[in-house]
């Protein structure tokens, strides 16, 4: 669906050096108009630097950044069609809420009344109607966040940049704001670019996610594609959890790969849907998510394939139980998550159990 949308931002071979430090190592990507796009990665991966090159707070060492088709090299942040929500929110503490929200309208030719109306509308949009006269410093974290959003959106930017906007909020509030941000983005239709280190946040909110490691984009895909078929083991491990087992490719023909994996045995995989990554020198690896395998508690349960295993660790989460089980013939324990439906027992450490799995849920990293 996003393929017909026009391009809003384009990076062409963008490099950035801080002295000897190579912060961005050849970024190539396009972000579509109206997209909710996330830059996801661990701290120090260059995601914030990349965001700041869009805003204009960081220059680039080589390459091109295009915003709406225009090369923005040398254009200062105050002349770019982007606005930013800062990690610290950067609410001006000496001003009131409405002065903060209306800050960017100073050079706007509209009349005072029109501007006041625009401020009221922006405040209403973020659910802060009637807060205009309050002192900005007297607001809570969540309210500051909303003021920062209103202050940026009132200028109707082509792109809204969000630098870890939810990281300072507590878990409940963060989850609420995630949903509100998605709704807000749909409502205003502006391109949102979010920087986050929280994979769950990125999965929940984004149309597409660029996973970054060490100044490079490791994979750019939809949340589902990233989760289902990660290109590398690093991406697989950063987005959720994945178990890995050493494997051997026996043959590959007609779109079907015949493989043998430790603890699982021989099976056939669909090359297009299940085989990923460049050939790695350490040999191939097969991976599966904890929720794609199940522990078989009674003999009646049917499953594609099963292997025997020993329970090594049990982690009880209330709605879920995580088991670390060692499959017979393997060295490392695998994590399997089980929903705690009514009547299902929690196994003890040391229990012998059957593990049910399906070849269709596996991913092979070459």
């Amino acid at each position: 669906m996003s393929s017909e949308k026009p391009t809003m931002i384009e990076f062409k071979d963008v490099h950035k050096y801080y002295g000897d430090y190579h912060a961005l190592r050849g970024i190539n990507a396009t972000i579509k108009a109206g997209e909710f796009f996330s830059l996801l990665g661990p701290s120090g991966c260059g995601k914030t630097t990349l965001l700041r090159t869009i805003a204009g707070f960081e220059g680039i060492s080589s390459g091109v950044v295009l915003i709406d088709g225009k090369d923005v090299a040398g254009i200062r942040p105050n002349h770019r069609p982007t606005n930013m929500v800062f990690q610290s929110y950067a609410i001006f503490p000496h001003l009131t809420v409405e002065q903060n929200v209306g800050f960017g309208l100073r050079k706007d030719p509209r009349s005072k009344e029109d501007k006041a109306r625009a401020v009221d509308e922006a405040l209403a949009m973020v659910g802060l109607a009637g807060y205009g006269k309050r002192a900005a410093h007297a607001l809570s974290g969540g309210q500051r966040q909303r003021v920062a959003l209103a202050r940026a959106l009132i200028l109707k930017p082509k792109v809204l940049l969000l630098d870890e906007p939810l990281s300072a909020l507590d878990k409940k509030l963060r989850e609420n704001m995630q949903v509100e941000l998605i709704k807000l983005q749909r409502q205003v239709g502006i391109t949102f670019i979010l920087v986050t280190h929280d994979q769950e946040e990125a999965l929940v909110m984004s149309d597409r996610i660029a996973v970054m490691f060490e100044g490079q984009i490791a994979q750019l895909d939809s949340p589902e594609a990233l989760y289902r078929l990660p290109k590398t083991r690093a991406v697989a491990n950063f987005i959720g959890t994945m178990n890995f087992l050493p494997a051997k490719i026996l043959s590959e023909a007609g779109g079907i790969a015949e493989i043998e994996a430790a603890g699982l045995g021989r099976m056939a995989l669909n090359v297009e849907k299940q085989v990923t990554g460049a050939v790695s020198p350490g040999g191939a690896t097969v991976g599966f998510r904890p929720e794609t395998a199940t522990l078989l508690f009674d003999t009646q349960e049917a499953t594609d394939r099963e292997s025997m295993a020993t329970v090594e660790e049990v982690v009880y989460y209330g709605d879920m139980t995580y088991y670390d089980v060692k499959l017979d013939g393997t060295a490392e324990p695998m994590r399997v998550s089980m929903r705690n439906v009514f009547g299902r027992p929690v196994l003890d450490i040391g229990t012998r159990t059957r593990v049910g799995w399906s070849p269709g849920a596996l991913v092979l990293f070459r």
Partner: protein
Amino acid sequence: MKIPTLRIYTIAYLIFLYTPIVILPIFAFNNSTAVAFPLQGFTTEWFYNIAHDDVLFRALQNSLIVSSISSVLSATLGTFAARASTRYKFPGSGPLMGLIMLPMVLPDMITAMALLVVLLSIGIKLSLVTIILGHVLICTPFSVAILTSAFQSLDKSLEEAACDLGEGPVSTFMLVILPLVMPGIISALLISFTISLDEFIVTNFLGSGEPLLSTFIYGQLRFPKYVPNIMALGTVLVGVSIILLTLAEFFRRRGIAKTGSKDTGGFL
């Protein structure tokens, strides 16, 4: 029984520190030229005297001119230096800041003599202007010290936000940075004013003989019959200082309430 050593020490310390200041107004109202107990009787004669002393009036006028200009100049220079040292990294910034701060630890005597030699050798006549030059040199390090902490506590993203919302560097400074460092600037002004007002060595070396408060008081103290006048003058100065400090504290607290920042203690 436990002896409250620390408490006794504290009380003794405070008495030692403040008795002279309390003595000042007592003798200012004492009807005797001798500064000695027992007190003779109540009089406002000394206050009348200082109010009608033309030389004192000139000294006061000169001091106000010198201290006002010195404090404004040093607070302005301090703002520039503090801003530069906290926001920009440039080669030699460390040694440069060291040089700016040096007069704070250099004996005033050295600074004053060196300045005097330089000024005389390039043929500049001593006047209030040369005193102001010396005072700015002495006061600027204090302004820089106060303002550096004010600029350091400023969140960098506030500036970036103003820029992001369409403001250029100058308007960002006027609309965001200046209001937020204003308490620091006021502190720097007050401290510089105070330092300049009671600076004696530089004033004495670089002056042309025009009286300033500090040199005037020093001159008067040599004559016993003028000592009660100085007591009265001292009382007035203490009163003015208390009012000034109260005002400064009031503005500081209001600033904190307005920006919601944390109260970190005294106005320094």
